[in-house]
């Protein structure tokens, strides 16, 4: 992509029918480290690679809990993700107060989709620079959605966004029809396996840079970081060893 005369603001179309500011916002998502989401009959899982700007700094939080039945993973501008997750949290609470029931995931993502869309049509505002994978469990079972800066929302069996996420998507495409009946543990390990494909040469998934989130019918939204991820990383390595035998 190169600079052109149609890319100054998000209320300008190009002759080819593109809004460049929105496309540029998607570039910010591609800069973020990869996150992978996948679901089975019972559960939905998110796994993410956390990055640290330098040795002195902490690793950036990638997976955020929205409610007991919903969570998100982000790639892109962290601050935009914070704002959106705060909004989702209040919407989730509002749903409980107004309707006496947990917010259905589809409604949640459409709410932020609409919010993002308005930033693509108003003069003077910029699109959100973050992509989200939203997992949750509601009356219709477990769900995985992708949210885009454009406001486009899609539901998936499995997906990945962020830096080098195509490798993960390829891996998921090959295997996704086996996910339906997997146990939670297998699903997480499968997610980690796909996530590993997004890493640069010589880098490994370890307890410092891995984040796992999951939710299910009888499983509240849980996020694992640090030592808690060790058992799944071990299973990942075991699987590796078995493959090479």
């Amino acid at each position: 992509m190169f600079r052109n005369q149609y890319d100054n603001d998000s209320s300008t179309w190009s002759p080819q029918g593109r809004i460049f500011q929105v496309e540029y916002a998607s570039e910010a998502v591609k800069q973020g480290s990869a996150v992978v989401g996948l679901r089975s009959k019972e559960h939905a899982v998110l796994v993410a690679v956390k990055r640290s700007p330098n040795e002195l700094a902490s690793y950036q939080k990638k997976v955020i809990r929205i409610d007991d039945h919903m969570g998100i993973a982000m790639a892109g501008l962290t601050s935009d993700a914070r704002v959106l997750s705060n909004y989702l949290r209040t919407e989730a609470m509002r749903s409980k107060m107004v309707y006496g029931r947990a917010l259905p995931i589809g409604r949640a993502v459409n709410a932020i989709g609409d919010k993002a869309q308005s930033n693509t049509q108003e003069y003077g505002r910029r699109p959100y620079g973050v992509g989200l994978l939203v997992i949750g469990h509601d009356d219709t079972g477990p769900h995985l959605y992708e949210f885009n800066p454009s406001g486009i929302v899609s539901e998936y069996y499995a997906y990945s966004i962020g830096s080098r996420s195509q490798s993960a998507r390829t891996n998921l495409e090959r295997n996704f029809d086996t996910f339906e009946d997997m146990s939670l543990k297998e699903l997480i390990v499968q997610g980690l396996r796909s996530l590993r494909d997004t890493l640069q040469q010589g880098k490994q998934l370890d307890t410092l840079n891995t984040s796992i989130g999951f939710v299910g019918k009888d499983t509240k939204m849980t996020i694992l970081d640090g030592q808690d991820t060790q058992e799944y990383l071990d299973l990942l390595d075991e699987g590796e060893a078995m493959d090479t035998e």
Partner: protein
Amino acid sequence: MDFVGIQQEFAHAPATERHTHNRWEPYVDNGGTSLAIAGADYVIVASDARQSNGFNINSRYDPKAFHLSNNAILATAGYAADAKRLVEVLEQNAQMYYHKHDRVMKTSAMAQMLSNTLYGRRFFPYYVFPILAGLDNEGKGALYCYDPVGNMERVVYQSFGSASALVQPFLDNVVGFKNQRGADPARLLERDQALKIAVDAFTGATERDIYTGDWLDIFIVDRNGVTHEKRELKHD
């Protein structure tokens, strides 16, 4: 000259009459009583469950003590609708805190937050007399009592509600050891003793206060969490 005097005399009289008798009243007292007692490593909260409106009973069992997600209990007295909404708001704030800080809200933090929430409606108050019960940072029993606009005080025991005038002096004597010679005023009660006192306070209150009775909800908070039991009271 006299006419001028008469004019002055009636100059201050209102032009129209004020109708104070037919205005809609936003508040209702749903009756009932709550009490709480704090110990060295526990708190006991007891609230009756009768909800009334004047001489009518709305419900034989409508709890007025609520278990919050940070293992605190909010006991209420006053207007049931405001009490329920207050609890909802409190719980939402507790959840938001948990989301943001990745840990449960401490009792002292919730206490301050409750005070601010109540004062936020200084000019259209929650008609609720809340008692917040939990464990403090050292694991000791903590009770905070409030007026409807948020005046907060940490205490060892408190009672609010329709029978509070009967219960509070009883607690002053047996929990606070007031008006007793030779008793140690700083002594905290053992849990079983405090529970007996709480139940006795209610059986006594049920006898004499028409708005108190039916069922008693008892919550006990200690380091292991929260337990809840229901006891029957007289239904008359």
